[in-house]
């Protein structure tokens, strides 16, 4: 373990803003992509249902 304390770790040698803005951006990007992937799958499944409903009506 390199750090001596939690606050030491958070401070990143005075570069906390730059380090955590970078890691935060990656985390945010991954979370957003996962949510978009899930939304797209839901939409695709809903479109199939619609297609089937149309067919039973005809």
């Amino acid at each position: 373990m390199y750090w001596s304390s939690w606050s030491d770790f958070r401070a990143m040698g005075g570069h906390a803003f730059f380090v955590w803005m970078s890691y935060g951006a990656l985390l945010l990007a991954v979370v957003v992509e996962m949510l978009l992937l899930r939304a797209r799958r839901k939409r695709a499944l809903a479109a199939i249902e619609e297609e089937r409903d149309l067919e039973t009506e005809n």
Partner: protein
Amino acid sequence: MNWFYFSSPSTFYGLAGRLAPWCFVSAAVLAAWGLYLGLLVAPTDAQQGEVYRVIFIHVPTAWMSMFLYFIMACYCGLTLVFNTRLSAMMARAIAPTGAMFTFVALWTGSFWGRPTWGTYWVWDARLTSELVLLFLYFGYIALANAFEDPRRGDRAAALLALIGVVNLPIIYFSVQWWNTLHQGSSVNFKGTSMHVTMLTGMLVMSFAAWMYAIGAALVRVRSIILERERRTQWVRELKAA
């Protein structure tokens, strides 16, 4: 063995669904290990101080941005030459994840550059060509969705992606060809000049990025397959079951 068995969207749909969770699980495990090494174990950098820790995500995302473009372009080549449906769908599935990694590479580089170079952005060859890569991804996505007939979108976008491949060697060699602000590579085919823990952390994070990218592309291609094939018999039976 029939090598073309999984090149049919209907069979690949099932395979992708089985593989994707394992990709995400291994990505999570590798990322946890890589972050542990990079953020908690690795020593500080003598010249840059703690801000150097951004490289544990900057370098893997930058590598992935180029690898994913290359793979996407390979699928585009298959699309144009053999007119295969699944290859076009895979190219479409990779593009958003590639754009995401490109954006994160630019963003993290910028936040590393501010304390290290004194600026968030310069029009240096490496940075500019990486920005062009982001626009190539955007252009690919926009063009692929610009046609009523998705097969025409596939082919037009594939052509754009293949032309854009010239940008890849420009990005990779930019630090050698031009005397720029961006430093040369610490890891190349001849070896490395890095501390072993730093190198291990960076490589582990790169494998995590790989696994994540494969998982995300597989999940996305499943949605694309459903969107495109929703009028086919197998999709109807799939949901009815």
